């Protein structure tokens, strides 16, 4: 199989050609599996439950126990037992036994056009649904193509399980065809990974993978499976017990620390709640709302925290940090108590560490002990699950009016509201987002690329619900937007899913448009097309004397590309057409791509230059001049 003839084996990864030799009339496996899965929808729904709570065995599979099975079948059975009804993946030589078992499994299987796209889809599927995203790839190039996607999920703490095929056990280390040291390559970008060398360990390892991915601080877990393990016979009997002596997650917070925190909140005259993605992964938005209301606290969010607190509420200070609002940054710099929940004091949030929140006592609530006091000194650390801790904290806090503080915050909020030039004759990118937000009534799921498009989406779309904003925050992965929209749409078929993308971010993964068309997903891609890598250009304008080195590339006609791929394509170059095109885009049932030819040299304001304190923002005069 991994034979001498390079050309013949090369086709194996592409799957179809090799297969058609042995089964001339067969459709590609993935399509048939999907057709079958759709037909069996009722059984899928019956077996589907969020992985976080899945301890019950699946009635469809418990009958398999005790039967002689093989490794590939065990994998499929375990996936179903873990509540997986949808997964993503790309076939290849060493995963053929597994794809054969998936052929008639009740799992919806989405094949991307590139493994990286599939990995982002699984990631966004997890972010949109709260379940574990599952991605499958073949050995060597397949596994290597997952690396960016895994690193993205790792940085943003997204629960994912990646399964990769590996060459036969006895070939490992021989530089075999399509061999890569997958566990070695992915170790720093996964929460945990391992290779299965005995089929008896397979079921346990997969169960552990789901458990590790979805508990504690979530993250991606990779299991590497040599092809001989997948075809080994094994008698799966008895319950599958996990063996993780070194893994503990501690959801309950220390009661004394919680009381200390409550006391500090009750005493504080100028507090600020600073919340991140941890609120969303622990499903603690409702508790956050209650805490902010009961103790009367202004709330600022990190990029990944957007959606955790309704931005229409007066307590919302929106996003903080490098491109955060001036009112959030001023409030943090002047507060006497900073209550961080599920956030990690990233450098894009804190700016210059030495001058960050200089007068504040800091409370830090986080599930990951290693996040505490990593970047800033924390006065009251509480390790545990945000939701469980907030429930306890709410009981002990008291309402305080803090009239002066709220008046100050309201004044900043008014003075430094995010604005753009509404009178301009060109299409301002902010206007497009503003209009999308208005027409979708704050209800859409927004995914983004990375750069200006991402920052404007974060600034001008006002989010109201968790899991509504899906963006690569930590790693800043360009190309995330389109596959993320696909993953989110699959997780939430009835939601309006919009990818607010940059032209060059879109360029990186636009091949996935074919995947969206194949599955007839009504995703909407809004390209804020300025021809530049906009954020790079902005830095070059501000810090490199407008020397726009290699940040401008010729773009294709995106509407034509979309049409060629079977999607709807539209180009907008007149400001007056924006509302109308957005309206028809929202009504469209097919995937569509709208190419907005926006103002070429617009900047994102405010901006804290790298290494500066977060109250040293550029662009405030520009915001004020547009009042």
């Amino acid at each position, binding site marked *: 199989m991994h034979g001498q003839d390079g050309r013949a084996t090369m086709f194996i990864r592409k799957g179809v050609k090799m297969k058609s030799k042995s089964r001339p009339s067969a459709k590609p496996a993935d399509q048939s599996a999907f057709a079958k899965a759709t037909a069996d929808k009722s059984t899928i729904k019956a077996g589907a439950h969020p992985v976080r709570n899945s301890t019950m065995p699946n009635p469809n599979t418990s009958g398999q126990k005790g039967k002689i099975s093989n490794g590939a079948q065990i994998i499929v059975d375990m996936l179903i037992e873990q509540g997986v009804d949808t997964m993503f993946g790309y076939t290849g030589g060493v995963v053929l036994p597994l794809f054969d078992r998936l052929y008639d499994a009740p799992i919806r299987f989405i094949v991307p056009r590139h493994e990286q796209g599939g990995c982002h889809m699984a990631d966004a599927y997890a972010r949109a649904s709260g379940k574990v995203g599952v991605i499958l790839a073949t050995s060597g190039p397949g596994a290597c193509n997952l690396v960016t996607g895994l690193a993205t999920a790792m940085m943003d703490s997204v629960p994912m399980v990646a399964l990769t095929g590996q060459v036969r056990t006895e070939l490992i280390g021989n530089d075999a065809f399509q061999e890569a040291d997958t566990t*070695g390559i992915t170790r*720093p970008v996964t929460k945990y990974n391992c*290779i299965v060398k005995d089929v008896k360990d397979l079921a346990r390892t997969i169960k552990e993978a789901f458990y590790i991915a979805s508990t504690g601080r979530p993250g991606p877990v990779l299991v590497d499976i040599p092809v001989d393990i997948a075809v080994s016979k094994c008698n799966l009997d008895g319950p599958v017990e996990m063996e993780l002596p070194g893994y503990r997650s501690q959801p309950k917070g220390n009661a004394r620390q919680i009381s200390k925190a409550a006391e500090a909140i009750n005493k504080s005259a100028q507090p600020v709640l600073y919340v991140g993605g941890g609120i969303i992964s622990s499903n603690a938005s409702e508790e956050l709302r209650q805490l902010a209301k009961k103790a009367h606290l202004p709330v600022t969010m990190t990029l990944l925290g957007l959606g955790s607190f309704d931005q229409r509420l007066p307590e919302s200070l929106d996003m903080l940090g490098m491109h955060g609002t001036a009112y959030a940054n001023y409030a943090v710099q002047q507060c006497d108590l900073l209550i961080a929940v599920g956030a990690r004091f990233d450098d894009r949030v804190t700016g210059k560490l030495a001058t960050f929140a200089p007068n504040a006592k800091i409370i830090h609530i986080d599930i990951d002990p290693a996040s505490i*006091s990593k970047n800033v000194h924390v006065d009251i650390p509480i390790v545990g699950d945000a939701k469980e801790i907030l429930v306890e904290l709410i009981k002990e806090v008291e309402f305080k009016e803090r009239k002066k503080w709220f008046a100050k915050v309201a004044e900043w909020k008014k003075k430094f509201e995010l604005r753009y030039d509404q009178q301009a004759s060109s299409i301002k990118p902010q206007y497009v987002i503003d209009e999308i937000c208005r027409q979708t009534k704050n209800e859409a799921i927004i995914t983004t690329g990375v750069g200006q498009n991402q920052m404007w989406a974060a600034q001008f779309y006002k989010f109201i619900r968790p899991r509504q904003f899906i963006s690569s925050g930590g790693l800043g992965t360009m190309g995330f937007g389109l596959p993320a929209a696909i993953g989110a749409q699959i997780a939430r078929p009835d939601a309006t899913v919009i990818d607010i993308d940059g032209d060059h971010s879109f360029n990186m993964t636009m091949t996935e448009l074919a995947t969206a068309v194949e599955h007839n997903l009504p995703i909407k891609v809004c390209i804020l097309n300025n021809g530049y890598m906009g954020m790079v250009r902005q830095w070059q304008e501000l810090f490199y004397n407008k020397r726009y080195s290699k940040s401008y590339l010729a773009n294709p006609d995106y509407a034509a590309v979309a049409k060629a791929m079977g999607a709807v394509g539209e180009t907008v170059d007149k400001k007056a057409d924006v509302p109308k095109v957005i309206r028809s885009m929202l009504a469209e049932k097919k995937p569509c791509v709208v190419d907005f030819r926006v103002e070429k040299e617009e900047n994102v304001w405010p901006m804290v230059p790298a290494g500066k304190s977060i109250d040293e923002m550029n662009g405030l005069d520009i915001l004020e001049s547009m009042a």
Partner: protein
Amino acid sequence: MKHIISALVENKPGVLAHVAGMFAARAFNIDSLAVGRTEDPKLSRMTIVVIGDDKVVEQVRKQLARIVPVVKVQDFVGQPIVARDLMLITISAPPEKRPEIIPLIEMFRGKVVDIAQKSLTVEISGPEAKIEAFINVCKPYGIKNVARTGTIAMPRQAKIEP
């Protein structure tokens, strides 16, 4: 400051790579690292000597504990411990020099474990400072090779009553 960190880890392939990789990825410096099985074949103990201020070592400890197959992490700083290093050292020792060298070895409670025409190989164990001192006294004779295990350590069990 030098910290001796002791980590009980699952005896699985990849664990050493995981630990070493974490140190490299987070730019922590390892002074020495020693690994060996414990009485339980499923567990190994790693003894890692790290140099850094308290904040850095605190992060090392937390990041180690975060690795899934790492079962327990202890920082021995400020505790009474027994710390030992084992060294094999080959010294150039022609017969006429041996009457001079052998008393030195005895003084350090070393043991000659191999002898050749012009050299001696000595096994010596003890706290790191003693090992360093022995290397220094051997230098004038000529050192051919040195192999060291790095420090391993155990907390002292007897509690000293005030």
